[in-house]
């Protein structure tokens, strides 16, 4: 038997409104007295917390893709009976229905540049400084500010590090990301261009992707499109997203 949630509506109203003050008090009393409600409430909170681990979810998604891609490459023999007349008729009807649905759904949806940026930009998890990245206290403090999402403070510290070590690609990369978060798109563009110009480093692909998104956010649409085309036609790990976004960019 399929189990169902029974308090979702009220939990949703309590957490995100609307709910009157008296109802809220009643709900809070019940939360203490009703273990089933309490359990479902906790589940609600736990799920949300786990979904905020954007980086782990992204990692899991990519692992699944690697596994599934590998499975898809296994060729299974085609069963010739599949091609029987009735299967062909059924397939044709299904195709026509799908085609009709697709035509109906093909009404163009317009996206603003900012909408597209929001759709495709996802903030990077804060990382600790690598062994190879000239570890020192300043780096740690700067990354710590980044982790705490205090991006302006992180930028001040990143700039201090870059004054002494301007070729530190790792810090350049996070300066770019922090600049996006602090709405300093021009600075972010400067950093990502620097990384790309250096070539042959592990950050180039991501820098290209973020640079294109920054151009989009800055309404430099043609420059963004050129870069998305370049990403789309390359082995960049963002090539599929770049292909999608190109279809959505308003002409």
């Amino acid at each position, binding site marked *: 038997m*399929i*189990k*169902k*949630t029974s308090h*979702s509506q009220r939990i*949703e109203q309590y957490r995100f409104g609307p709910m009157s003050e008296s109802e809220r008090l009643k709900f809070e009393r019940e939360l203490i007295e009703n273990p089933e409600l309490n359990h*479902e409430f906790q*589940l*609600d909170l*736990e*799920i*949300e917390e*786990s*979904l*905020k*681990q*954007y*980086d*782990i*979810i*992204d*990692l*899991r*998604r*990519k*692992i*699944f*893709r*690697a*596994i599934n*891609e*590998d499975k898809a490459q296994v060729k299974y023999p085609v069963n010739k009976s599949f091609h029987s007349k009735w299967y062909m008729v059924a397939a044709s009807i299904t195709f026509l229905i799908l085609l009709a649905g697709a035509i109906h759904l093909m009404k163009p*949806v317009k*996206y*603003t540049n900012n*909408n597209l940026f*929001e*759709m495709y930009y996802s903030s990077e*998890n*804060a*990382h*600790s*400084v*690598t062994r*190879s990245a000239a570890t020192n206290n300043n780096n740690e403090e700067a990354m710590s500010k980044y982790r705490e999402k205090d991006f302006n403070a992180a930028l001040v510290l990143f700039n201090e590090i870059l004054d002494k070590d301007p070729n530190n690609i790792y810090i350049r990369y996070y300066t770019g990301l922090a600049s996006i978060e602090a709405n300093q798109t021009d600075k972010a563009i400067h950093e990502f261009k620097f990384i790309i110009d250096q070539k042959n480093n*592990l*950050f180039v*692909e*991501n820098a290209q992707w973020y640079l294109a998104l920054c151009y989009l956010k800055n309404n430099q649409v043609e420059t963004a499109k050129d870069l998305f085309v370049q990403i789309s036609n390359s*082995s960049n*790990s963002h090539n599929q997203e770049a292909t999608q976004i190109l279809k959505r960019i308003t002409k």
Partner: protein
Amino acid sequence: MIRYTDEAIVEGLRLRKEKIIKYVYKEYFSMARHLIVNNSGTNQDAEDVFQDALVIVYKRIIDDELSLNSSFKTFFYSICRNIWLQRLGKMKDRSNDFVDFESITNLSEPTNDEINSIENKKQKLYQIHFLNLSEDCQKVLQLFLRKISLREISSIMGYKTEKYAKTRKFKCKEELKSRIINDPNYLKIYTDD
């Protein structure tokens, strides 16, 4: 195929670069599967252990707790091996029965907490079910968690009204909760809790 150095693999994993994840899968999954299938496991177990091992490695990298004193291959094998041993509950009494296929390093042993904590098990369960939702649902829920306003969510997702965005978000979360509570592993985790 391009060969990556161990350092490039670690940096690539830190950035969650898809080509590195695929590379690690192509290079090391068969090793993990061989180990697990030859020690009472299935292909599905191998995929599960591979995923858990990579998440543990990633967490160690971003927490700056990874020190490679052996090759990445040996390190990764040891992580998979220890996860599987712990899962089999053989760590103490039956480790002598265990058949190894690669050299191992003691330095990479994942803690019991990394593998078996209720917290981690729950998070994994929730995240896997989340990834099985439709792309539309995943996007709505993530936008909402990022505190994007319902107005903006409607605009981004192409919904006509904010009310619909709210309803959609609620239904997606309901779908997710329903899948979770109907997963036999959910009950098992809570029984263990």
